[in-house]
């Protein structure tokens, strides 16, 4: 699944570590999601959407 997580993160000037801390996950998990190697669970996708104030489908594309 493709996503715009990296663009959104970089727009805010956050590092992967900063985003990981805000989402309460590891930096490596953020990296795995950004590189589309791992699709997050629905609760984590909701946390991401809430953090960036966007709809899930605006961030994640099938």
């Amino acid at each position, binding site marked *: 699944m493709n996503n715009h997580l990296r663009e959104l993160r970089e727009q805010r000037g956050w590092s992967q570590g900063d985003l990981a801390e805000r989402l*309460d*996950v*590891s*930096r*490596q*998990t953020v*990296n*795995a999601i950004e*590189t589309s*190697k*791992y699709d*997050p*669970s629905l609760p*984590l996708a909701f946390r991401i959407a809430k953090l960036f104030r966007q709809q899930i489908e605006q961030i994640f594309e099938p």
Partner: protein
Amino acid sequence: MTRLSPRTYDRRVLIAMSIYVVLMICVWPLARNAANIPLKLVYALTPVVPLLYTVWLMARRILGSDELEQRTHLIGIGVGAAVTSVFSIVTGFLAAAKVFDLETTSIFLIWIFPLLMLSYGIGRALAARRYGLGACDDDSDGMPSYIRFMYASGIFCVVAAIAYFYSGDERITSFALGMASSLVTGAVFFGVRRWLRRRKAQ
């Protein structure tokens, strides 16, 4: 539960496993010639203490990890359970058929826990690699692999020295030296790989 940093986890597990190895080689053999049953129990079960601490550390790490890390732990535990189960049942069949004597069977039983840990580690590393996490290698936030291997090698060197100078047990000395040299080989491999990756990144 508080997240345990990979570096802290690595350090604590290394210390616990070092104590385990030293106890297994220096204390556990005393159980055979202990004067009474309580002392025999103490000598025989003392190495279990660092193992229980390691199990507790693992539980704490897994409970404090995020969903992707938990998935890789689950795969690792699955691989570990499969490998250990097959090893146990094969050993059990052979022991029941009296291919081994009781002493040999008990030695196999001692190796079940290290085998579980090893196969769990390999399974988790493979799963982590699939997700680009780089567990057990130098991309992770934990201790670099070559340092881990060098440290473990140092422990086996100490054990070899203790066995050679104090007990004079050639079997333990040669086993410990063999382990130490294998671990140094691993350290060199990971060290060279790290150096090549860093040079490529520059």
